[in-house]
């Protein structure tokens, strides 16, 4: 399947929290768990204030730090989205530190973040948050179509918001959650160029497999060597005992004379 994406249009969001509630109900989230958090950001100086509702939610990065560190495969990339298989999660919490956006949370010892409603998508539906938004601020479809739609929307609102732009076209290899922003990312509290530290990849792709490889190698080497070593030791011991016995006997015979 081609890459999918969510499109969140901050020019349209009215901050009603309907998506937050729909996500919670649809995905049967626990008390205190939330895959979307909405923050109101007020810009400008009185009386020229303008407010925006900024969504804090998984950006489904193509180059996802959380997937890089996840040791169990609980997090993985699927069709441009970052899938979650909570049953595989070991609760290590590495993804919490590795996400440049601080998205994943630990709830009850397991990871909690937006799953892109992949179970719903698999049966031909769209995510709960998309279904429910009364002002059509959240869309879901092929990433290409979403980018087209986003460009169209940016053009529409440019008159009102001269700094309007698409967020997520290139960040972290291209985000699977695109946003239409009315202003610069930084003024809205979003990093313009988020980064996954190089060390994160080195650790996951180098050190973790190395650890498993060396352990296996150690076990195999000693396992094989054991067969030879035991035999050698037994032979040596037998030879030494025989020599000692002979020496002892000679000594005893000597005593008699």
């Amino acid at each position, binding site marked *: 399947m081609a890459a999918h994406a969510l499109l969140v249009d901050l020019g349209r969001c009215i901050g009603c929290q309907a998506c937050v509630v729909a996500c919670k109900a649809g995905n049967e989230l626990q008390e205190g768990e939330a895959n979307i958090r909405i923050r109101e950001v007020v810009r400008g100086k009185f009386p020229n204030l303008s407010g925006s509702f900024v969504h804090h939610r998984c950006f489904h990065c193509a180059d996802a730090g959380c997937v890089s560190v996840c040791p169990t495969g609980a997090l993985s990339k699927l069709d441009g989205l970052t899938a979650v298989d909570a049953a595989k999660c070991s609760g290590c919490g*590495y993804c919490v*530190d590795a996400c440049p956006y601080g998205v994943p949370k630990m709830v009850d010892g397991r990871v909690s973040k937006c799953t892109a409603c992949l179970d719903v998508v698999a049966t031909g539906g769209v995510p709960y948050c998309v279904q429910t938004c009364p002002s059509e601020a959240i869309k879901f479809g092929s990433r290409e179509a979403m980018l087209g739609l986003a460009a169209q929307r940016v053009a529409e609102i440019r008159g009102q918001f001269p700094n309007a732009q698409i967020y997520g076209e290139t960040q972290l290899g291209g985000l699977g959650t695109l946003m239409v922003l009315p202003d610069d990312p930084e003024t809205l509290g979003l990093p313009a160029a988020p980064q996954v530290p190089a060390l994160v990849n080195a650790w996951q792709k180098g050190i973790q497999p190395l650890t498993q490889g060396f352990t296996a190698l150690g076990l195999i080497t000693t396992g094989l060597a*054991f067969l*030879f070593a035991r035999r050698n030791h037994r032979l040596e011991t037998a030879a030494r005992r025989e020599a000692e016995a002979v020496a002892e006997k000679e000594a005893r015979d000597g005593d008699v004379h």
Partner: protein
Amino acid sequence: MATSTERRVLRYLPEQRLVHWLGVASVLTLLVTGLALLWGPLSFLAWGGVSTLLHRGAALLFVALPVAYFVLNRTKGQELLKEIVTYNREDWEWLKGFPAYFLGRTTHLPKQGRLNAGQKLHHLGTFLAFIAVTVSGLLLWFAKGQLGGAGLAATAAVHDVAMLAVTILIIGHVYFTFVYGALPSMTTGYVSEEYARLEHARWLEEVGADSPASDAAGAPQSVTGD
């Protein structure tokens, strides 16, 4: 096989054996629950946070053990620390003969003291890895969520590599224990005189000459019959 009249030599006091086996229990628990964090097939252990809890419990025991060793018997603790950093020419000769020792041969090796050069290096390595595991582990415990991506990767990499070192050391340690039949020294506290002569001849001479038949640790004891 030790004959029924074989003399035995006291090697480890009860408190040393206790600390050792508690160490084994804690390290094996740490390994399994640690692997559960890294290896998908074991991640079911994370259910309800069980493996994480066990990992932390075992970590507390792990960190407390060296302290316990010194509290229970300071002389032995100091002796161990001193021995693992003291190497002489015989140790060097022994290490050169290591490949054949690995395959079960000993006749070519110089006489060894209480610890042979391989044991000294093993115990020293264990001690260094212990420090690295402890420091990085405490950071992962108390600073997770504040380390950031790079900090987390660096800390976890140190933790992983140190635990890898511990694992390799354990594999080698258990290997030699069973190749040379060394297990009784840590279970009963005694080794046969034959074993002592073979593996630690200089030690046998020293403790034999020092204080025959005394009760002090390391002194030879005549124990007839089993």
